[in-house]
């Protein structure tokens, strides 16, 4: 048997190709970096993170983390991150709730409820989130009446000065007490939750559909009511399909929260934009942003993978 020529030997070719790709990549990266270095020196800039300790000097509309204008840029960015986490946290819970209800409702025996659930999913999924956000903010929340004519819903008051939960009272023409959400946060949450829940509803629907019909019938013959069947028999089994699907929806929600910048809510991206403009540190701020969002996604993935293991263990 004669030896193969080298170009027919797939192992050798493989290594050659890799070497070439590696070299090419190195070349590109080196070129980009040298350009970067060159351009930065020209402009008299240096990559550093020292500015993070400088006083920021700007205020942020609302922060969970105590923050004042005299605090550092680092703390301002942290306050922005906490604001992002707040939206993502509340958004995840509400969107999951609404999504599960809408997903389950598409299996209802009542045609009205079924139709409503399908219409909701089909309408909301096919309209861009950013459009929905600016609609909620500019066309709905900014047109609310002033505080003394606030819209009254059970446990909820809507006015131009904010959305008040749990019984705010009118004192001197202003609403006080209760739990106040700013209009920006309220609009962002409304838009994000309604949009994400439509996708979650589809995931839930797929999960429930994957449970064999026999399970429903068996539960029924045991005398369980439909809602109890859903809760005790179907959902626990559907979870195995639902949880992996939820993972990517949750990551989408976290990333989509950055659209807050379009409606004036001071999330991480908005604070980063202010910071980078006041400091001129475009590259550093961009790298920080990427790292934080990747970390956030990673956290969600790890949590969801843990949950996935939990639900699949139950099976055995």
């Amino acid at each position, binding site marked *: 048997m004669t030896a193969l020529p080298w170009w027919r030997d797939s192992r050798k070719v493989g290594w050659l190709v890799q070497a070439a790709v590696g070299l090419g990549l190195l070349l590109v990266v080196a070129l980009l970096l040298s350009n970067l270095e060159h351009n930065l020196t020209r402009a008299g800039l240096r990559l550093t993170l020292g500015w993070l300790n400088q006083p920021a000097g*700007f205020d942020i509309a609302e922060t969970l983390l105590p923050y004042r204008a005299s605090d550092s840029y680092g703390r301002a960015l942290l306050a922005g991150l906490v604001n992002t986490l707040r939206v993502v946290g509340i958004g995840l819970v509400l969107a999951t709730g609404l999504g599960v209800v809408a997903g389950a409702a598409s299996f209802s025996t009542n045609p009205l409820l079924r139709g409503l659930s399908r219409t909701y999913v089909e309408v909301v999924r096919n309209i861009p989130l950013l459009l929905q956000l600016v609609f909620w903010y500019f066309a709905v929340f900014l047109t609310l009446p002033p505080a003394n004519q606030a819209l009254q819903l059970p446990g909820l008051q809507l006015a131009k000065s904010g959305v008040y939960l749990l019984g705010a009272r009118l004192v001197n023409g202003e609403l006080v007490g209760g739990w106040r959400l700013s209009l920006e946060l309220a609009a962002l949450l409304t838009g994000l939750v309604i949009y994400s829940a439509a996708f979650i509803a589809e995931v839930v629907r797929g999960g429930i559909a994957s449970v064999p019909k026999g399970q429903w019938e068996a539960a029924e013959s045991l005398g369980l009511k439909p809602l109890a069947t859903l809760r005790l028999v179907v959902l626990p089994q559907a979870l195995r399909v639902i949880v992996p699907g939820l993972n990517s929806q949750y990551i989408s929600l976290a990333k989509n929260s950055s659209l807050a910048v379009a409606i004036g809510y001071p999330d991480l991206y908005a604070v980063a934009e202010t910071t980078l403009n006041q400091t*001129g540190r475009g590259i550093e701020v961009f790298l920080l942003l990427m790292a934080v969002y990747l970390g956030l996604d990673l956290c969600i993935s790890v949590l969801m993978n843990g949950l996935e293991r939990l639900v699949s263990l139950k099976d055995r």
Partner: protein
Amino acid sequence: MRSFSRTPAALLLGLLFGLGGCAGGQDQGPGAGRLAAIKARGTLSCGVDGKLPGFSYQDSDGKYVGIDVDVCRALAAALFNDPNKVEYRELTSSERFTALASGEVDVLSRNSTRTLSRDASGGNGLEFAPTIYYDGQGVMVPVASGITSLKQLAGKTICTENGTTTELNLADRFREQAIPYTPVKYQTGDQTYAAYLQGRCAAVTSDRSQLAAKKTSFPDPAAHTLLPDVLSKEPLGPVTVNNDSGLSDALRWVLFATMQAEESGITSKNIKEKLAFAKANPNQADLRRFLGVEGELGQQLGLPADFVPRIIASVGNYGEIYSRNVGSESKLKLDRGLNRSYKDGGLIYSPPFR
């Protein structure tokens, strides 16, 4: 799976080398001889606001007009003898400096306030041209609110644009006077004023000239008023990147030329006569130097000898630019105030052309 590997590898490879070839062009940073690069390109790229009446906005024909635009037009006239050889790029306040530093635009002419940290190489690393509009920060409120002083804004919401000196001054002034307030910040002026008009905030703050300019476009301008307080000094001017004195010197003296022309009484209407007069009278040394009839002032800047007549003929002197865009001949009718020539007690002053 072995068979999957080779074809995509080859394709990826080609792609990467293609990219490498693109990136390996001439070694020239955004600052390296920018002036030469602009001349070679044949157009000037200018970053503007684009939505601010009086400073830079599109008129009904879609043409950009305003003081900030005239800065770009003047430089283009000096370079190419054609004020229209400018590519405008609209920038938000929060992206403007990054766009300039990364070489997106040659000149940033977007009502930017000169501050130490923006100028210093340890800060934003920018190079400020002479101030073309001395301004101060103001606060606008609806007349109906009955608010007449800053103190009355305690506990209220104030709208402002993201990434401006305005938000910093606002924080400083209200902190000094211990007035609590909530800032709501938007990415663009459009959103800021829309939110203000929809009643999201009790007041909106910005440069006084900008507030006055925006007010003229409100549905009912008389329903809004500027508080008497001036929160800060806002010297506005165009900007270039640091370490490129070729471009920044040219821009600086193009602007001084418009100011000197006003001091010398040269306007777009009489420039031809003045030029003829200078050519005919060898004794008019100052005028002859200024208009490029003798000496090599233009050459020293890397500009044509007749750059001053080109500028004045196409955009006029500083006084003409002011009154056409924001002064008596415009809708805004802003008083010249500090922006009078030093001869009339203002701050507009050109160093000598010699």
